[in-house]
């Protein structure tokens, strides 16, 4: 197989023809008159009917995929919408969705995407290439400030989407982009017949608000909106026009209804799960997991600990150039690799996992977590915590310990700094207290400053008025490209020193080069090598000191079929169309 040919359609699409190299042939033009080209999905064959009740922390702010910035909105919207190419949350690989197949040119700049025939929106209107072109144009419209817009820019230039015929589109990239098919995930294909008028009128951002009549909200996802009761619930009903089916050719979804019950506190969610009023909790904290775990043998629910997800917690030091004088005095320490390595060595990650996460987490020494099966560099060393080894490194770097045990630098200044942490996060605060105690053993005085999360972000990204910070990042995808902003030295979320005009250090220049190269390298193995090198540099230079990746823990009723939670968001409802009740009593 030629290396530029994207290998897809391995198991999921029974009906798809083999993909040819080069541009795809044009498809028949009249999309509406064709028999539906359904996608067959693998999994247990289930029974239709029943309602699933899922906990939601908050109610959605909008049903508009372009305007949605918050998780509660997106959780609901993505049960009603679909994308062209989808990242399978279980395999972590891109797979066809509304796109039946695609080809890519040898230079990686041009994609030709064939759409499914006979697909209809939930209101019965046929879907075709005009909807796709309209959707991408809307997402790329600067006036709408869509969250996904940045992902559709390559080197600052937008991708171009054009119609070839009713069931074929062409996508032109401004520059080669590895794994470009992943860009199409989470770009909802919107109904042009409903939304083009508000777009032209400049009111698309306000369309499909929560007060919109349910019948007005149309999509290609497995469910459609039936009812929204503010503060209570959002009820979605089965979309009869959905384009997936099971191996027995039964149309999906199985469930007749999917209800999001608004239960703001996790305590109440746990109580209602135990009472049988809720069927699924999408995320359970470690403290509640302990309680649920204890009772699950006699309870109707099952708790699933998926192991480390893509979230990682880390400590980093302020290495910005423009900082207050008090911080500047400490930057000689923060900028010294040996100091950062000593800090990393002194921190007992096993204690962080045991005490802050009740054992439900994984210690990490690199920024790509073990939950990212495709990209984690398994060769990164896991040095054991050692105060003496840390002190030896600090001695090499010119630090000394006084008679009272206080660590001082070569100029005799006692080493003391503050760690900024978000006040509301109990686990991060516990971690900060453990790190403080570990560093005390080196003779370092640490003050913990717990502030409101927005104040933390403001200090880190804007005023740069902090010494060190304990923070967490959650990757949206396993692929490294969405994290370009973190690793490029000119990135806005290059946390320890954002928006550099030129790389401040040689190793940051090297990371810039590697990240840019991997972004345009189309060969998967070569990309992996490049990103492995980035991970090795980060693990050695420790601009972020990786500490822990908390486990993803979810819960659901035992009788829920095809419940296969994954570590990519949405953990539990990513295959909502396949979920079904094994027994009649679960069906409500």
């Amino acid at each position, binding site marked *: 197989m030629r290396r530029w040919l994207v290998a897809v359609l391995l198991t999921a699409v029974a009906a798809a023809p083999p993909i040819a190299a080069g541009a795809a042939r044009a498809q028949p033009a009249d999309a509406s008159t064709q028999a539906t080209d359904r996608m067959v999905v693998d999994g247990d064959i289930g029974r239709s009917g029943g309602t699933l009740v899922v906990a939601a922390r908050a109610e959605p702010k909008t049903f508009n995929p372009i305007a949605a910035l918050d998780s509660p909105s997106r959780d609901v919207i993505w049960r009603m919408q679909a994308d062209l190419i989808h990242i399978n949350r279980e395999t972590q690989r891109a797979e066809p969705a509304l796109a039946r197949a695609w080809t890519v040119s040898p230079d990686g700049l041009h994609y030709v995407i064939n759409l499914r025939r006979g697909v209809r929106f939930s209101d019965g209107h046929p879907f075709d290439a005009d909807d796709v072109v309209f959707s991408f144009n809307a997402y790329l419209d600067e006036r709408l400030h869509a969250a996904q817009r940045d992902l559709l820019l390559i080197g600052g230039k937008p991708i171009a989407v054009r119609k070839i015929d009713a069931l074929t589109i062409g996508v032109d990239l401004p520059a080669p982009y590895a794994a470009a098919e992943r860009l199409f995930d989470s770009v909802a294909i919107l109904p042009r017949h409903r939304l083009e008028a508000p777009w032209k009128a400049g009111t698309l951002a306000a369309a499909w608000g929560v007060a919109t009549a349910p019948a007005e909200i149309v999509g290609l996802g497995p469910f459609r909106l039936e009812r929204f009761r503010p503060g209570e619930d959002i009820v979605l009903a089965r979309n009869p026009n959905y384009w997936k089916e099971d191996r027995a050719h039964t149309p999906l979804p199985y469930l007749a209804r999917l209800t999001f019950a608004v239960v703001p506190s996790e*305590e109440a969610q746990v109580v209602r799960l135990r009472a049988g009023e809720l069927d699924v909790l999408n995320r359970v904290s470690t403290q509640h997991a302990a309680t649920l775990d204890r009772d699950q043998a006699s309870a109707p629910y099952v708790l699933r600990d998926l192991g480390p997800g893509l979230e990682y917690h880390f400590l980093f030091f302020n290495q910005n150039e423009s900082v207050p004088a008090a911080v500047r005095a400490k930057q000689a320490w923060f900028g010294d690799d040996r100091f950062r390595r000593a800090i990393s060595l002194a921190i007992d990650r096993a*204690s962080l996992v045991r005490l802050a996460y009740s054992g439900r987490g994984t210690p990490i020494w690199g920024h790509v977590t073990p939950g990212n099966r495709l990209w984690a560099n398994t060769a990164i060393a896991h040095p054991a915590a050692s105060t003496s080894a840390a002190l030896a490194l600090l001695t090499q770097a010119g630090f000394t310990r006084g008679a009272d045990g206080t660590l001082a630098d070569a100029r005799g200044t006692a080493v003391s700094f503050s760690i900024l942490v978000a006040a509301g996060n109990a686990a991060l605060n516990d971690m900060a207290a453990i790190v403080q105690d570990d560093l005390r053993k080196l003779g370092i005085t640490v003050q913990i400053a717990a502030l409101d999360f927005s104040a933390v972000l403001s200090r880190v990204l804007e005023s740069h008025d902090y*010494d060190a910070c304990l923070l967490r990042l959650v990757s949206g995808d396993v692929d490294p490209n969405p994290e370009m902003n973190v690793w490029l030295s000119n990135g806005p979320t290059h946390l320890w020193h954002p928006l550099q005009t030129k790389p401040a250090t040689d190793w940051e220049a090297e990371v810039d080069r590697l990240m840019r190269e991997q972004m345009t390298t189309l060969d998967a193995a070569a990309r992996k090598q490049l990103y492995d090198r980035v991970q090795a540099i980060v693990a050695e230079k420790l601009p972020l000191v990786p500490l822990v990746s908390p486990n993803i823990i979810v819960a659901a009723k035992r009788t829920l079929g095809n419940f296969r939670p994954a570590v990519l968001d949405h953990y539990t409802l990513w295959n909502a169309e396949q979920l079904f009740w094994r027994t009649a009593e679960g069906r409500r």
Partner: protein
Amino acid sequence: MTRLLGPAVGVVAVYVVVLAAPFVAPYDPAVQHRDHPLAAPTALHMIDRDGRFHLRPFVESEDADGATHAYPLRVFARSSDDVDTGRGSRHLVSVDPPANLFLFGTDTLGRDQFSRLLYGGRISLGVGLLATALALGVGLLLGSLAGFFGGWIDAAVMAVSDVFIALPWLYLLLALRAAMPLDVAPARALASIVIVIGIAGWARPARLIRGVVLSVRNRDFVAAAAASGASPARVLRSHVAPAALSVALTQASILIPQYTLAEITLSFFGIGIGEPTPSWGAMIGVMLRQELTIAHWWLAAPAAALIGVSLLYHATADALQRRTLALGVTR
């Protein structure tokens, strides 16, 4: 008097115990016993497994092989809690390692709750006391001046007090904390909490004192003293101050638990003294994790202590008020 004696003695006893925390507490409150997170309170035994009675209570602890050994409670023994120097301070009670004496269990990081409760009491009750002194001092001064002299002084003081009462202090403090330096040492943090609570709280006692002074100033015996040539300072000192002081004392017994609670609120919102210094507010903050508290009831110890101390103060305030009324000072 006997109504007052009981609660007053109780209050004093609480302060004595928390002031003696380094001696009474078995452990340094910051030490993390990382192998014992959320450990239940240590059981004290007097009868061993063979049914023999021991005059000295003991605790049981398993060794590495799983065998259980008894470790008698040691009184006034020197502990080995200072790792660096190898010799620790004397403690009221302790047990030899590897046994542990967690009288109120441990928190999520394995820190002894009993020791943290005592050390935390020094902060929380200390803040209550000092902030009350500050608020009452300012309130007494400004309230007396406003009540005694009246006129523009009265109008100005009352206008400013209105502003202070109307300010949303908690939000202001949250904003203030976000703008403050991050590396605030515990002593400075303590001082700023006392000042903030004291300054925020002077207005209400000032208004009360003003009312008392205004009432006393218009009494016949005060007018007689003034008419017979007594200076304003003498009238204030001899006639007005005793009445105001009596009310201030009652106010103090009400304000101290209130301001202790204010410290707890500030710590609860993360504006208090930072880790690892304990305070009751920071400890009660853990109770937000309800499931944790239900499963580990000993985490509620600081809340129970706060309720107990508040009841003692309220009983003291009640007795003081009865005494004041009985003396007819405010009538």
